């Protein structure tokens, strides 16, 4: 039975992926050669770039930590464990972020839960089959880091033994259980707390964001932890235990071949998982059966509000966004990052002078503007806004609205969501970091132009690669060709924007940052006009061809 369920889960996953990357027409069963080439290129690009990044980083780290002068400076004790601990930490964090969005959907909100629970299958088997899928997602990210970091350490000057390699492989194989315990726990807490709540989506959104705040706080403080590690090398045991004891043990077990640490780490990785699985299996049936219960809201007749058709569409798309915390987080991670960045700057305001010193007179306003442009490129609202119409597409096609108005409403939705937060973030920086009025205005113009451009770009990509056979909007935002292209494309454009603003300033005497920012803003607005023309050209025909 379990085998059949597992086969179904994996078939579903691979079918979903295959569907996502197929052509935009429903009858297009096979991928075109161009699409295969593009996917292969992106896949290789990801593996090579990120893989090389990890390998080089850990090779460098391994070389530094095995340098005799460096070792002597820290009392002559072997330091390889630091690199291994950092590898463990990175694998843990990446696998957590990579799988957290799918866990809730897979475990508690899967559409076939009712069907499967009506069959003579033990709930534990259903839970287990779903967990295998979540584990494979955790493992994919975690093993990616482990493999390339391991290669980097192997080719570094570090002394690596066979026992070290075996310990490295075993502990890294078990590491995803630890991150999975965290994602499962988060999904369980959200499901338990929101089970009988009226505003289920908002509560689950707040809980998820809260969890992320804690997570990012930990990430932002990673440097502090590493500094503390280095500062306290002599009295390591007691000073580290308060910070990252499991990860410390992970590093020590592998680098120092410490058997006790090896088993302690195994305990740390597996015991929380076993406890979480025990809790989940005991409550799974109950939560699944009651989590879809809708709290009865009595209708009270109120005066109705009227609005124009375009704004009615905007309000509708905004309601859809805020109706699902997972869809919201997947499409608006940039906004979340912007808010976190503002908070981080306010919290670390005492360190700004040091940063200004490092910048040697280069305006902080430009840096912060470009940073917000980069973060803004992570917003994927318009990149899936057509696809999420899914089974409701018939409605958009049957209403007496021009396709141009429907497209305009969708673009407006993207702007309503992304533009205010970006601009307010920059204004907040301007106040806190005391930017000049001119720098602020230039920054606001550039940021507005870039935000507008990313929205148009995402929409154009989605219009070309729209698919409507998703089971829910989270999948449209996660597993779609359009989001994939828009994400990498926008990130590439944001780096290009930064290069065009900054590089001429250093290369040519005539180039001022005011000039380059104005130039880039004008170019971006020109591109927006071009994209707008392309989107609106034959809009009615494009609308009819959708679906």
């Amino acid at each position: 039975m379990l085998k059949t369920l597992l086969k179904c889960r994996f078939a579903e996953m691979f079918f979903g992926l295959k569907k996502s990357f197929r052509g935009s027409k429903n009858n297009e069963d096979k991928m075109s050669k161009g699409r295969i080439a593009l996917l292969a290129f992106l896949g290789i690009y990801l593996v090579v770039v990120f893989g090389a990044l990890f390998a080089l980083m850990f090779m460098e780290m391994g070389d530094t930590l095995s340098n005799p002068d460096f070792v002597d400076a820290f009392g002559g004790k072997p330091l390889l464990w630091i690199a291994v601990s950092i590898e463990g930490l990175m694998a843990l964090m990446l696998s957590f972020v990579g799988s957290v969005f799918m866990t809730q959907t897979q475990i508690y909100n899967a559409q076939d839960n009712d069907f499967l629970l009506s069959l003579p299958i033990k709930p534990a088997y259903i839970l287990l089959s779903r967990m295998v899928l979540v584990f494979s997602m955790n493992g994919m990210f975690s093993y990616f880091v482990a493999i390339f970091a391991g290669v980097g350490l192997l080719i570094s000057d570090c002394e690596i033994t066979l026992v070290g390699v075996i310990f490295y492989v075993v502990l890294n194989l078990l590491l995803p259980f630890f991150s999975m315990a965290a994602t499962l726990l988060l999904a369980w807490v959200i499901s338990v707390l929101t089970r009988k709540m009226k505003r289920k989506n908002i509560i689950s959104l707040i809980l998820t964001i809260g969890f992320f705040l804690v997570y990012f706080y930990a990430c932002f403080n990673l440097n502090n932890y590493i500094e503390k590690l280095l500062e306290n090398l002599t009295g390591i045991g007691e000073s580290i235990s308060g910070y990252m004891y499991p990860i410390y043990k992970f590093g020590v077990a592998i680098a120092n071949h410490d058997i006790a640490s090896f088993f302690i780490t195994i305990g740390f990785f597996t015991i929380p998982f076993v406890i979480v699985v025990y809790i989940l299996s005991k409550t799974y049936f109950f939560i699944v059966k009651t989590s879809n219960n809708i709290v009865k809201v009595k209708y009270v007749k109120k005066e109705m509000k009227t609005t124009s058709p375009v704004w009615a569409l905007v309000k509708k798309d905004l309601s859809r966004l805020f109706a699902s915390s997972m869809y919201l987080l997947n499409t608006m991670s940039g906004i979340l990052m912007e808010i976190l960045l503002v908070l981080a700057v306010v919290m670390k305001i005492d360190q700004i002078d040091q940063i200004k010193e490092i910048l040697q007179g280069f305006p902080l306003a430009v840096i912060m503007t470009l940073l917000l442009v980069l973060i803004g490129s992570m917003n994927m609202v318009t990149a899936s806004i057509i696809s999420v119409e899914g089974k409701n597409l018939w409605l958009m096609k049957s209403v007496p609205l021009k396709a141009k108005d429907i497209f305009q409403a969708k673009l407006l939705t993207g702007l309503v969501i992304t533009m205010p937060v970006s601009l307010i973030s920059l204004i907040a920086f301007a106040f806190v970091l005391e930017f000049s009025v001119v720098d602020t205005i230039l920054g606001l113009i550039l940021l507005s132009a870039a935000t507008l451009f990313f929205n148009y770009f995402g929409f154009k990509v989605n219009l070309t690669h729209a698919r409507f056979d998703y089971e829910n909007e989270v999948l449209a935002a996660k597993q779609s060709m359009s989001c994939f292209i828009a994400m990498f494309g926008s990130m590439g454009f944001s780096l290009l924007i930064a290069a065009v603003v900054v590089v001429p300033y250093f290369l040519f005497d005539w180039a001022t940052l005011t000039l380059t920012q104005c130039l880039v803003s004008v170019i971006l607005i020109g591109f927006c006009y071009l994209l707008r023309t392309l989107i609106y050209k034959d809009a009615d025909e494009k609308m009819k061809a959708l679906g």
Partner: protein
Amino acid sequence: MLRIENLTKSYGSKKAVDDLNLHILPGEIYGFIGHNGAGKTTTLKAAAGIHDFNEGDIYINGVSIKKDPMLCKKNIAYIPDNPDLYDFMTGIGYLNFIADIYQVSKEEREEKIAKYADMFEITKDLAQPLKSYSHGMKQKIALISAFIHNPKLIMLDEPFVGLDPKASFLLKETMREFCNDGGAIFFSTHVLEVAEKLCDKIAIISGGKLKAAGTIDEVKGDESLIEVFLELDKAKEDEANA
């Protein structure tokens, strides 16, 4: 009210609708009968401006849907067989949204919603999200949304599926009332008894081709409607085998 002239719609090499002609007058309830995959939904979707078509034309109130789709869509309401509505909205939110799209005045939408929601006994559930609605409840909301903007022609794909007996009865009454006021209704159904009792005219479609059309008496003659339907269906099978 609705004139379909030589409508042909193909999916690849397969003709879903083949040279179909139909004429529906104001005040008529017109039933569209056919087996699964006969071409009923394709025809309805083409008339609603959802599907493009290869040949022919469709006129709503004398206006070609190809030439002025916006004007045509303002005059019609279409409800598919499975009313996939916006699940994230509440019932009242959805109705208000549709009223905004069709620019129905505040007073008129309040009056219409109150009237039809009370009639279909769904008023108390209007604040609930649509995802909590049963198929029948969604169908009721879809029907209210169809009546809210005073269309001249309503096109319904299997409207009675999922409705409880009382709601079915009320829908039939409302359909008749709507047509008595000068509107027209074009609906598909599998239930021949409903077609026989409710419709002024019927059309039978098989394999994308119109097999018979006219008043009930003209179509069935001395036979029962089921006999006529089965005969036409058998003729289609023979044609396919030949």
